[in-house]
């Protein structure tokens, strides 16, 4: 028995042991808390920044930003209109994939911090695959029927392989997947850059990017603003994948074995679960799902592969953790982060407040959700004072 394994069993313990209801409460509390801290950050930033006419006076102190205004603009920028909604849903769609890429291995007791790398290489695989296949298939509807699945499969294959590798290193060499997946992100970015720069670069324009994918492969906007790079069928497809993951985890034998492995490794092995198989399976599936997300980023959003992808892989971790790593929670959680992403662009655009604020909120939410004990303590304290009356005693 590797000591690594035991240490992570211990790690997973606190979060796993909460009931579903408690977990939902913790998630909601974390979001509210993060928004509260966000208010403080905005006020602090507003008191430091220089501006002609302050937006707010509190006790004689000038604040350049009014937090209420910021949240309103953020909301407006996420859901205020057809374009905003589709932009939000675009991020939500992609986040569902990277979040699933964290959630599935988590259920098997593994931390996949590598969704970003799997996403990057998956997207490159999809772009290159589609461009290659496009040379032999006609355009139009026929091309679409061939090219879109090609892109998705290529993304899944490359991403899956890139998820398989850390799984293999763990199974064969007992290497900690937290470290390997973390490093693999950096390696992926470098490899993708060099590959594109040397072999797939589009000579006609500057920059490190592939050619544009053929029009037949592009997943064009449907039912939504044309320029929002969002396609409703793709969104439905994403929800379908999430539903499939839920089915896999709760209904199937493999899913059962995976959860047993994640919940209590020794017992799973006692029950005849093959540790190597569940590790490889969950990591490969995770990589493939992130790779599909990458493929959709190319097919639906960018239309080509380009350096400097957004950090969807890391956002996915936040989405998954906020959802308690439960596929059923991914949609609301993904929607929240999609809205934050979208709203972040809006506050930068309209108020001049850096969209990096969203990055801070994202980190805060992760931190707080990973700390259920904090809320339990607060609950106890409030309970004792008689402010609220809830069952706060843990199950252990």
């Amino acid at each position, binding site marked *: 028995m590797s000591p690594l394994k035991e240490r992570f069993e211990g790690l997973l313990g606190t979060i796993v042991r909460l009931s579903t209801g408690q977990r939902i409460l913790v998630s909601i509390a974390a979001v509210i808390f993060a928004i509260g801290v966000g208010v403080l950050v905005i006020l602090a930033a507003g008191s430091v920044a220089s501006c002609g006419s302050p937006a707010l006076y509190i006790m004689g102190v000038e604040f350049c930003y009014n937090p209420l205004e910021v949240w309103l603009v953020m909301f407006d920028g996420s859901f205020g209109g057809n374009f905003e909604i589709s932009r939000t849903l675009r991020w939500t769609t992609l986040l569902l994939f990277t979040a699933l890429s964290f959630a599935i291995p988590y259920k098997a007791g593994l931390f996949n911090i590598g969704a970003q790398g799997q996403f990057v290489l998956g997207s490159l695989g999809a772009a290159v695959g589609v461009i290659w296949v496009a040379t032999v298939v006609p355009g139009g509807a026929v091309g679409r029927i061939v090219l879109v699945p090609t892109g998705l499969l290529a993304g899944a294959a490359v991403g899956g392989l890139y998820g398989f590798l850390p799984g293999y290193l763990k199974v064969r060499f007992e290497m900690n997947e937290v470290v390997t997946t973390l490093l693999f992100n950096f390696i992926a970015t470098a490899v993708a850059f060099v590959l594109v720069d040397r072999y797939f670069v589009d000579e006609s324009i500057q920059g490190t990017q592939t050619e544009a994918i053929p029009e037949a492969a592009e997943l064009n906007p449907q039912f939504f603003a044309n320029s929002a790079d969002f396609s409703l069928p793709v969104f439905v497809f994403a929800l379908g994948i999430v539903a499939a993951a839920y089915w896999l985890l709760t209904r199937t*034998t493999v899913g*059962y074995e995976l*959860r*047993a492995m994640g919940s209590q490794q020794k017992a799973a*092995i*006692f029950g005849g679960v093959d540790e190597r198989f569940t590790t490889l399976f969950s990591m490969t599936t995770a990589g493939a799902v992130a790779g599909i997300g990458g493929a959709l980023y190319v097919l639906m959003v960018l239309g080509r592969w380009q350096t400097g992808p957004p950090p969807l892989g890391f956002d996915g971790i936040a989405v998954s953790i906020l959802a308690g790593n439960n596929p059923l929670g991914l949609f609301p959680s993904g929607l929240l982060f999609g809205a934050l992403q979208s709203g972040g662009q809006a506050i930068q655009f309209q108020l001049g407040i850096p969209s990096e604020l969203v990055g801070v909120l994202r980190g805060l939410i992760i931190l707080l959700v990973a700390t259920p004990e904090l809320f339990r303590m607060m609950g106890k304290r409030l309970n004792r004072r008689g402010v609220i009356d809830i069952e706060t005693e843990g199950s252990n």
Partner: protein
Amino acid sequence: MSVAVHLDGITKRFPGGVLANDQIDLEIEQGSVHVLLGENGAGKSTLMNILYGLYEPTEGTVRIDGETVDFETPQDAIERGVGMIHQHFTLVDPMTVLENIALGWEPIRYGGLAIDDGAVEADIRELSDRYGFGIADDIHTPVEELSVGVQQRIEVVKTLYRGADIFIFDEPTSVLTPQEADQLFEVFEELTAQGKTIIFITHKLDEALTVADRITVLRDGRKVGTVDGAGTTQDELARQMVGRDVLLNVDKEPVNRGDPQLSVSDLSVTNDQGIQKVSGVDLTVHRGEIFGVAGVDGNGQSELVEAITGLREHTAGDISIDGREIGDLSRRERMALGMSYIPGERQERALVLDFDLVQNAVLGSQRDDQFRDGRQIDWDAVREHTEEIIETYDVRPPNPQALARSLSGGNQQKFVVGREFLREPDLVVAAHPTRGVDVGSMEFIHDQLLEMRDRGVAILLVSASLDEVTSLSDRIGVLHDGAFADVVDPESVSKEQLGLLMAGEQIETERAVGPQ
């Protein structure tokens, strides 16, 4: 003699309502060996952790040498001369003997910029000589490289180094051979001769009688009574411990031995650290018999069991079931051949504590056709099966949705036994099947084992409890240092002879009956 420790009305209630100690009064005389006797969970360790400052009592007071003390941390206790040697050693494996002994009590120099290791070393040598511990050569060796017996002596030296006058030993012999245990008891004599006081926690009656000046029996968190070591008997103590007469002898049918079911030949197994723990073991378990494996914990029992059940690879030898070689088969394939396994570490291995009983009921059978519907698990079938286990094996509460974690030890074990027996196995490997369960559940599980045997199932029973092994088994293999010291007939061998075998010594007895 003066009284070293007074405990007055100690009560300890844990969060969640568990009452571990209930109004316990105790007086321990200076320079004596005082045994705290009780079953697992009787509250012995909790009481001593209170004396050692690890827990704070909910009620009651502790007095040392007549003076009331209020220990908040072990540091406080240590400063008042109380030392504790835990069942699980509190040694830091990669650190040296010196570093371990001095931990927390380093003589610092230059305002904390350095430690006077020379002074520590001199002290250790002096203690080692005075009490005859013989650890002077190992002072700069990492403790992980030393044997268990030496590690325990280091624990004692560590406690002495901290200036302890009162020693608490928490089940120190469970990891020792009888001979090592005897050495420990000699250390006790040395210590008491120098005026030290010893509190010795155990659940082994013979040990208690061997060393005790006085014996206090605890049961269910309450004190039953204190007696003089010289004036009591095993039977008397046993009755006090469990609260009634224990039936040490189980009624069982004469053995009806069938064909060999499990055959192991020349089996060798290594542990995680690559140290050979099982060397060249041969054994055969026939249908309809219980083959018992006795021995002090740590002599290769767990490695043997893990190799047979498919949880650990073996380095040499053959394992076969019903004549079929299974050495290379996975755990799942072995289960499919009719092997059931009741592990000792029930909470770690046999149950997923955060799964409900339904999900636990299918653990191990998740790929059987009975519970499958294509790729899916047929949860309706599993639920029915769960209800059957609960009903047949009297699991309480009878709620399939209950989390395994929420059940008591006995009920958890009954559930496991039920699940494994309902698999209709041809071979049962039971390791410490009644460890930590209440007496009622223990009797129930013993009955179930015998019933399986009488139905013609082959049973390999491994237990640290000699009583359990001798009363249930038809033959007993005594494991010492990874090999069978002998295979004997329980009817024709005394406990003393078994003890010698466990210590690795040969005895003259009639050879075990039946085919080998």
